[in-house]
């Protein structure tokens, strides 16, 4: 551009002042337009921007396999998978075989290996957070109290099993966490939409719903061995979970 301008100036006397002026004006306009595009659409990537560099045209890249961001090492198996090691408070092998319900859902009865206790303290804040997240992600199918009558079901999606029967009342909390994470039957996993802590918050809210819908059942946040195939001894070494187990009991309200 600079070269161009110099040429114009040196040939000023030949081509006449007005021609030079017009050329300069054009150059100025081109320059300023150029600036606009460079500022407006900068040569950098924003989220979801198209890329000509990568073969799949996506500027937003997946993490390479096996990458662990700092602070995301998933050491706490119970927290991240809902499953426990033997020796922890986990559900035993199934007592019944899987059955089908009227909507064609195969009903899970094998909860073995799933943790019975929340791997984080259940507080009012956690349950409130769970309620909020439940109403974002779950209510669309499972309905406001978990009976499987959400709007998407009314639109034609097959009805999910209700939370409010003995099978799921006695299911370990790890089961709900695991289903949210990897899916179950016709439900996709929600791992990409709901981070782990929020999944546990939702589980705590599901338990709260179950308790609210079964006011005389003397239910507790974690099943503690009454008339259940999934009974397990109360944990003695878990220091995180017992704080609320005693208190969130709809039966006594």
């Amino acid at each position, binding site marked *: 551009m600079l070269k161009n301008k110099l040429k114009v100036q040196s040939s000023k006397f030949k081509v006449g002042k007005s021609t030079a002026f017009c050329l300069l004006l054009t150059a100025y306009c081109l320059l300023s337009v150029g600036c606009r595009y460079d*500022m407006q659409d900068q040569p950098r990537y924003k989220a979801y921007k198209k890329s000509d560099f990568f073969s799949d045209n996506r500027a937003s890249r997946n993490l390479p396999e096996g990458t662990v961001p700092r602070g995301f090492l998933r050491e706490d198996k119970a927290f991240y998978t809902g499953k426990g090691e033997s020796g922890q408070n986990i559900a035993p092998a199934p007592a019944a075989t899987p059955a089908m319900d009227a909507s064609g859902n195969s009903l899970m009865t094998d909860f073995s290996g799933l943790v019975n206790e929340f791997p984080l303290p259940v507080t009012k804040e956690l349950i409130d957070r769970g309620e909020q997240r439940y109403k*974002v*992600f779950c209510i*669309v199918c499972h309905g406001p109290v978990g009976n499987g009558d959400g*709007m*998407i079901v009314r639109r034609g*999606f097959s009805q999910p099993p209700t939370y409010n029967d003995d099978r799921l009342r006695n299911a370990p909390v790890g089961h709900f966490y695991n289903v949210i994470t990897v899916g179950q039957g016709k439900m996709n996993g929600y791992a*990409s939409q709901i981070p782990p802590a929020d999944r546990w918050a939702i589980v705590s809210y599901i338990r709260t719903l179950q308790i609210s819908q079964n006011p005389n059942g003397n239910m507790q946040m974690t099943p503690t061995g009454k008339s259940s195939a999934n009974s397990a001894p109360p944990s003695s070494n878990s220091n995180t979970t017992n704080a609320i187990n005693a208190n969130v009991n709809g039966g006594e309200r």
Partner: protein
Amino acid sequence: MAQIFHYSANNVAKLTIVAAVVLAGVAGFVYTQVARSSYLTGRYVEKQQPVQFSHKHHSGDDGIDCRYCHTAVETSSSAGMPPTQTCMNCHSQIWADSPYLEPVRASYRENKPIEWERVHDLPEYVYFNHSIHIAKGVGCSTCHGQIDNMPAVYQENTLQMEWCLQCHREPEKYIRPKSEIYNIQWNGGDLTAEERLNLKADYRIRNEQMMTSCSTCHR
């Protein structure tokens, strides 16, 4: 020497002075109107998308929360575009054979993202972050309008700097309680001026100098 100009030229000259001023004013006014027009700002222009996705249907009729798909809106600068799997959460069964949804199924089969047209395209010299606006009580519909009534999404506002500054100067006029952020229907409630100021204090929104400082948005 004879007069070159007729006597009436005096009036023409006076008129010219007035006309020049008026013309300059009109030109200025026309410029501001053109600069704010939807031709230049893209306001109210519906974008055609590769899939006939209707926010009116999903958000308005079905009542699905904004965050079901735009999961990152509370935690990230980008609100987050849903991966095709989020579509398939429901459309694996609902409208599963519809030709309208073939681009979605093709995307899922071939593991290739759907290429949506960006509706709100801020200039890249502007720093914008969704999460801070959510955290400080700006509702979705404050900027995006009645999304639940838009079969095809369009830009509700000009996205020009004067529009941003309206709210950055007087946020109390636009913010709402936490519980109403995702309520597209919210129409201002019956908040009094005092309640609005209290809300601003609760959200700890900074003073006008900070909110309108250049480097707040141009960093």
